[in-house]
Structures are given as structure tokens and as C-alpha cells.
């Protein structure tokens, strides 16, 4: 399998298109006949990271790098950043605004879902500069 790299622009507060980049990635992996369980895990993680960019972050990119051994999914935004990553990782922690909670966001389960469904999760953030989330998924055949 040759290695493939794709990148999608994702815009802050764009709830109309939110999720589309993750759907593209899912379809790409499916078309490559990638392991079904891995495709499902990437779909969950892509959705959560993409929604976090849209809701909490700023304009940025969702990109995917695929080869036969692993998938690396990265979501980077130029938003406010995360002050306390350890706190943000806790299940139930959310700073979502009331209007978003009414839409069913803000359970504080996005980051825990990403942790649970990826083989490696790395978050780096510079307050005032943005957030970079990188997740790796190993192809176990």
C-alpha cells in the first residue's frame, strides 16, 4: 500500500459542515479496504476532534496520513487553546456554552472517546495560539 496524505479545512462555528471531513476520511479508508474496526475507531475520533475544533477551537485542518501499518489523524486549530489538558481529559468536564448543551454537546465525553478509541493520543496546546491533537491507529490486520 502506498502512503496517502489528505488534509481538509475545518471552520470554527461551522455546524453546517461539521463532521464532513471525518466522513471523507472514513470513506477514504473504506475505499482502501482498511480494517473495519480501525475505520470505525478513526470515525469516532475524527468526529470528536472535528466537533471540538468547531465548538471550542478555531479555524484549522483535519488531516490524515495512511500507510499499511497505521493511520495518523491530526486536527490542528488556531483557537484559544486548552489551559489544563489533564482537566479537559476528565470525563464530564466541559466548558460548552448553554446553547450547545441544548443541542446535545457538552457531555465532556469527546476527549475520553478519543483516548479510548485510539492507540496513541497526543495533545499539545499553546494558550492563545491553538490546539494540536494527534492520534495513531495501528493496523492489526
Amino acid at each position: 500500500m502506498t502512503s496517502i496524505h489528505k488534509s481538509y479545512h475545518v471552520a470554527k462555528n461551522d455546524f453546517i459542515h461539521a463532521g464532513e471531513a471525518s466522513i471523507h476520511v472514513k470513506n477514504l479508508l473504506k475505499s482502501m479496504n482498511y480494517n473495519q474496526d480501525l475505520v470505525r475507531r478513526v470515525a469516532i475520533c475524527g468526529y470528536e476532534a472535528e466537533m471540538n475544533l468547531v465548538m471550542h477551537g478555531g479555524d484549522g485542518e483535519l488531516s490524515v496520513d495512511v500507510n499499511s501499518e497505521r493511520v495518523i489523524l491530526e486536527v490542528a486549530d488556531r483557537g484559544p487553546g486548552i489551559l489544563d489538558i489533564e482537566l479537559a481529559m476528565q470525563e464530564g468536564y466541559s466548558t460548552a456554552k448553554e446553547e450547545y448543551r441544548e443541542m446535545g454537546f457538552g457531555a465532556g465525553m469527546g476527549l475520553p472517546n478519543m483516548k479510548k478509541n485510539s492507540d496513541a493520543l497526543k495533545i499539545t496546546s499553546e494558550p492563545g495560539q491553538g490546539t494540536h491533537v494527534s492520534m495513531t491507529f495501528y493496523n492489526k490486520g
Partner: protein
Amino acid sequence: MKVKELVEKFGLKVAAGQTGLDKEIKGGYCGDLLSEVMGNAGVGCVWLTVQAHQNIVAVAVLREMAAIVITGGSTPAPETVDKANAEGIPVLTYPGSSFELSGRIYAEL
């Protein structure tokens, strides 16, 4: 059970996603918190929710659901209908509660 059989059996209204009515239902899930649903719903499920906005479609597509049922008498937003039609995800509506409908579906699956 196929989605179209579910529609007939429980008197659901098809609001969008006609092309997906032949999908096979493998289970069910109830929830209104999207990330909770994303993390816990099973592949191939029918999802009962009161949420009717466009973002429910991405959840259903990415989780490979069979169909969405919007309960409680709400109707899907126009954007929800457009997206569901484009993705072939059936969006059904039911006037009663998630509790009531899930009880009825549970007994049949």
C-alpha cells in the same frame, strides 16, 4: 428487521433518507448527548433521540447506524433532511417518547 419494516410496524413517518430503508437493524440505542451516543451506540443500530438538528446525521453516518428516529413530536430541521437524503440515512419521526418507543422496539428485535 429492515428499517422499512420498523416504519410499518410502529407507524413511523419517513422524513428523509428514503434510499436507506432497506438497511438491516442490528440493535437500538437511546440518547440525546451526541458524544455519549458516539461512544456507546452499536454499529447498525436504530437511534432514538429528541435532537433534530443537522449534526445528528454525521453521528449516524460515522457510527454506521441503520436509522435515526426523532421522538417527542419534533420534526427534523431542513438541513437535517438535506444531509440525510445525501447520505442515505433514514430519518423517521414518532410523536411519543423515546421510552415508549424503545420498549415497543425492544420487544420485537
